[in-house]
């Protein structure tokens, strides 16, 4: 979300404040620029909140063995249907499995031609299925395991990354410094690694953050349907599914996992939104 009071940008969309800062580069210029980034990040107001939520969750996840007083898989018949104090983080196990696809699509945007056409048509076909439905179908066929879950979610969100990466690569490809790099006689591999990738990272980072929120929602939906993480391994989705059976008797069993999912997803959405304003104002 845009910072409404952001008057630091002039007509060219670039901050004049930034230019004076860069112009005044001292031998410590790098740190000055770094400090400026930090300043903007903190003053972005949205992104830090998201980061705090995510960090808090990661903290809970990492410290879980210490905090959680009982083995999460153990049965506690006496405690059955007691209000739970906390949820467990098990929704974020599908971190960027799309690295390969992203690199492939970068090269598609870079080389163009038949490779681009082939890669984009493949993505179109995956895109032609509603994401959650394709994930359900993949889980139905491959069977339920965490590995398959990661694979399924990775596959269905690949086209989004592919499109973002390709569009960014296409834009960057036409820029002057790419021509300069080529004029210097650099090989394709080096141009992609050193010049293309760093310059398309911003939109991809934003997409990673927003897609993680979608991935968590998908994981919990699949687990809720009984096609994702299987009990007794707890996942917010299957907790919700079990809690739903006692909705009338013990609603908190269904309420808290949902709130936990919502909080983390909100965190990633806030971070993604903030990062977008922060890294790439043009994307608004």
């Amino acid at each position, binding site marked *: 979300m845009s910072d409404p009071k952001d008057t630091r940008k002039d007509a060219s969309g670039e901050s004049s404040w930034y230019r004076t800062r860069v112009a005044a580069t001292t031998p410590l210029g790098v740190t000055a620029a770094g400090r400026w980034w930090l300043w903007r990040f903190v003053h972005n107001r949205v992104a830090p909140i998201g980061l705090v939520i995510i960090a808090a969750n990661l903290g809970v996840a990492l410290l879980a063995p210490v905090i959680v007083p009982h083995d999460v898989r153990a049965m506690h018949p006496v405690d059955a249907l007691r209000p739970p104090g906390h949820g467990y983080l098990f929704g974020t196990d599908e971190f960027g499995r799309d690295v390969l696809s992203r690199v492939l699509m970068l090269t598609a945007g870079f080389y163009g031609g038949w490779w681009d056409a082939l890669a984009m048509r493949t993505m179109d076909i995956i895109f032609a299925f*509603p994401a959650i439905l394709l994930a359900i179908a993949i889980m139905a066929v491959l069977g339920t395991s965490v590995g398959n879950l990661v694979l399924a979610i990775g596959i269905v969100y690949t086209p989004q990354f592919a499109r973002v990466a390709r569009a960014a690569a296409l834009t960057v490809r036409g820029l002057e410094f790419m021509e300069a790099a080529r004029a210097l006689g650099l090989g394709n591999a080096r141009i992609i690694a050193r010049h293309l990738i760093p310059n398309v990272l911003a939109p991809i980072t934003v997409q990673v953050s927003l897609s993680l929120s979608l991935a968590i929602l998908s994981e919990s939906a699949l687990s809720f349907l009984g096609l994702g993480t299987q009990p007794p391994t707890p996942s917010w989705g299957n907790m919700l599914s079990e809690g739903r059976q006692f909705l009338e008797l013990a609603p908190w069993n*269904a309420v808290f996992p949902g709130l936990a999912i919502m*909080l983390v997803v909100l965190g990633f959405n806030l971070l993604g939104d903030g990062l977008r304003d922060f890294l790439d104002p043009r994307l608004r």
Partner: protein
Amino acid sequence: MQRYLASRVLALVPVLFGILAVVFLLIRLIPGDAVQLFLGTQVEMTPAQMMELRRFFGVDKPIPVQFADYLARIFRGDFGVSLRTARPVLPDILTRLPLSFQLASLALAIAVLIAIPLGIVSAVARNSTYDIVARITGLLGLSIPNFWLGAMLILVFSRFLHVPLGQYVPLSQNPLLTLRSLSLPALALGVAIAAILMRHTRSSLLEVLGQEYIRTARGKGLRARVVMLRHALPNAMIPVITVLGFQMGYLLGGTVVIEEIFALPGMGRLVLQAIFQRDYPVVQGVVLVIALLFVVTNLIVDVLYAWIDPRIRYG
């Protein structure tokens, strides 16, 4: 316009081919073959009998030939036979299609009705308390898992408000009862779309309101309402329609989850039931039908888009 339409329809052919290939290959990924799946573990058979059954199902041929057979059958409208009920798959799917379709349409309608006015007010009253509250609500709406929202709606309405949710009644029998039975599920499904649409309406309208021609319109003394309705809104809605197109997949896929929660007998429940019964022809059929629906709705959105914005047609 006709040329645009023709080129769009033509571009669908490879995508349709790809969809059919994926749906066909899905079943081939299962460990074991169709015959073993069909028999389960109970039946003891001699290898000769197995071969005979394989020939009967056509799975003894090479994969490309099987795929050609599959394509031919699909074009004849033969989606296979359920392994559990021995009934043809397609009629079963078609009887459940209306519910899923009505649910998705109602969710879309609810989303548009909530999102567009809120987005407009948010953009006009930019940075007001209302705007800030609306934006935060929008982010929350984007983050709520729809199945959880559905469960909470059931909880609130049945436990605290004691409102009976009612069974699904087909549209042909009593449209009012249909609306009543589908409104809560549609709300649960539509909230996320509403949030997305609201955000895009707001940002798109803000961008349009900053354009020169809006200043011109205001400068020549048009009333604010006319500027908004005649000049700003139509232009601001163009990107929103594209976004709407992207959300069709979410709507169609989301029906699977929502139907399960509200126990609605639609395509979604059919496919889930089939998955747990390992009834793969039904799974294949539903996935294919939903993917086809998705492609067709996307085509409609694209055409609508080109109709509203001539730049797309000639671009």
